[in-house]
């Protein structure tokens, strides 16, 4: 049996951007599996292991906030960078004032989730000695250590994370949240590195619980 871990994740704001509305951002109603995976990865990630999301429990009601922010609309050109590297000089700056784009966003407020993920060995030492990695995660998560700050969809929405050792005494999922939430992004399929493909699954919530082991993922 591969080890399962549970994290209690909370935050003041969150934005799990829908791909169809990622310019004027609109969030999904709750955390996507890939965003949840990256919370685990921010605590421990090694090439030898992989995180597989098992279950997501939504703990607080879905609340929205509409915010407008200043961002930029341009990216630094890779060709210019290559040229500058070769010639040893060049202008690579991106001027915020010139490239400013105001973007509206419909974000989530005061979110709380309980995330269950399983650690899977992929290669190397993990195949024979997974305990090393589970201990590592156990230690790091219980001390609040992380490689980078766990976040909720966007880097600016930081998450407060707590390792849940046993589910006793933990709050109930939000039972009023029920039903079909349509097709949701599961993760990116990186088997073709040149052309990563999105994978979608049908987000069916049962009394506040999203069971990902049952989800049919289409890529």
């Amino acid at each position, binding site marked *: 049996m591969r080890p399962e871990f549970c994290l209690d994740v909370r935050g003041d704001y969150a934005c799990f951007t*829908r*791909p*169809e*509305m*990622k*310019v*004027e951002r*609109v969030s*999904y*109603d709750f955390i996507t599996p890939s965003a949840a995976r990256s919370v685990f990865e921010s605590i421990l990630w090694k090439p030898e292991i992989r995180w597989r999301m098992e279950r997501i429990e939504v703990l607080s009601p879905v*609340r*929205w906030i*509409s915010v*407008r922010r200043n*961002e*930029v*609309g*341009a*990216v630094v050109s890779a060709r210019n960078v290559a040229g500058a590297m070769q010639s040893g000089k060049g202008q690579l700056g991106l001027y915020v004032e010139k*490239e400013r*784009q*105001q*973007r*509206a966003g*419909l974000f989530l407020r005061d979110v709380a989730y309980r995330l269950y993920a399983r650690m899977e060995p992929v290669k190397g030492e993990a195949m024979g000695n997974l305990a090393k990695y589970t201990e590592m995660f156990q230690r790091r998560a219980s001390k609040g250590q992380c490689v980078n700050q766990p976040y909720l969809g966007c880097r600016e929405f930081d998450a407060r994370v707590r390792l849940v050792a046993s589910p006793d005494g933990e709050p109930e999922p939000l039972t009023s949240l029920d039903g079909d*939430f*349509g*097709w949701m*992004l599961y993760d*990116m399929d990186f088997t073709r590195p040149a*052309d*990563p*493909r*999105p*994978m*979608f699954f*049908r987000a069916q919530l049962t009394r506040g619980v999203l069971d990902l082991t049952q989800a049919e993922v*289409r*890529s």
Partner: protein
Amino acid sequence: MILQALHAYYERKVRDPDPVRRLPAAGLEDKEIPFILELSTDGRLLDISDTREPQGKKKVARRYLVPQGVKKTSGVAANLLWDTAEYVLGLDTKGKPERVAEQMAAFRQRLDALAPHAEGDAGLEAVRRFLAADPLAAAQAKPAWAAVAEEGNPNLSFRLQGENDLVCQRPAVFAAIQAAATPAAAGHDPATVTCLITGQPTPPERLHSAIKGVWGAQTSGANIVSFNLDAFRSFGKEQGANAPVSPAAAFAYTTALNHLLGKQSAQRMQVGDASTVFWAQREEDKDVEDGFAALFDELPDDPDAHTAQVSALFNAVRSGRFDGAAGNNRFYVLGLAPNAARIAIRFWHADPLRDVARHIQAWFQDLEVVRSPQDPPYPTLFNLLRAVALQRKADNIPPTLGGDVMRAILSGGPYPALWLNAAVQRCRAEQQVGYLRAAVIKACLTRSYRLSPQEAPRAMLDKDNPNAAYRLGRLFSVLEKIQEEANPGLNTTIRERYYGAASSTPLAVFTTLLRLHNHHLAKMQNRGRAVNLEKLVAEITSGITDFPGHLNLPDQGRFALGYYHQRQDLFTKAEAPATAETTTTGD
């Protein structure tokens, strides 16, 4: 979820039993065609019929379901079986004969491409024969040509003599168009991805049709799904591949949204700067759909519709219409606002009807406040927003306020602090607490009470309310009344001079005001009245232990509400003086 819901709405509407309300099927479009060329089966032009009908000052052409038009740019691109006079007849309107010849060729080419799919269709044959001869000369020979020429370069289409449908609507042609519009079964195509609306494998639509009718956006339309700058793309993907949607689903959601946003649509309203559309999940809740706009907006042609709809909603809730399974049907509200050639989602609600009905009912209960007979019982959202804006102008409503209030109404959350703030500010600035502002203040206070339950503000004068701010508001109202009765016809009363200070820093002004009121009382002719009013002052002040140095915003709101309640109360009594003498002094 938004696009999925729109897609489902389209599926519902495309099957609508009423053909007038039916949305166009895939590959078709609802288009205004001012002129129809009437052909005989052998391709002779018999007549040109004018479909335009006067509507106000302008003439408006009839709308027909025609094959979906191509996106026209500067290049030559022809539509199928309908297009402008340049394409159809080869009419040269810009003095560029080569270009017109190209346009005609393009138009015929599309017809020729369709011909094998609809082999031997009489209508199609007639059109091809007509175009093979000299169509322009034939058209110019008709008496109706003058009207066509006057329009410049109008859209034209064809009809067979004696038929109701256009040639492009004939069953055989229609089937051929549909066959051409449906992409060949995908599966082995390397570009195939999962459609995020339907979940089906599909090649993604590159560019989605524009959404028209959002206030403030370009009139030619703007997009919800668009990736018009490099920074918006991911993984090096181009345009629509960033958000894979099948062409059919893209057509469905844009058609549905454009239909909802249309000029004639009863399912749209303006909330602040957000163009808001709404629809029900199921056909059986159509009546809610029809009445929703009237709940928040006063319809210009029927001012009573608002009150009627609110009552209808209350009755529906009371009769248990939204109980049980029926209440689980969802109701969708979508607020759209323009932003830099794109459309942003301002708010989005997909709640069960049960909750929507309950929240709207709560909204009207929150607003309920004592009023004079000429004030409407259920104020409209627009008027409430205007009441807190400078000069009561719609332009001065803070931009996001409407959307925030709407969100609060539908979700049952707290009303935005900005709203209470604006209402209190306007009261102070204009030294007037009208019905609408009192309703706003009461709603804001009620909702914050409900979320942190204490004692809720009442709709009418609450004599036992111990809150100092509320009492001071009442006191101020009585002092003003005393002055008014002592000096009838006064230009400037204490309200004009002291309202702002009294509502924010009571300690500083109430000593002056209470000193003044003794002089006013002494001046009053009617001694009985003076005694009664003095008793009222004593009754109100007895509950105030200490005059606060200053009041915070919610307390300023309470002050305004106390003032409004007391003033309404004084005036109601004044209308029936016989009872006033006995009851104002009461308890």
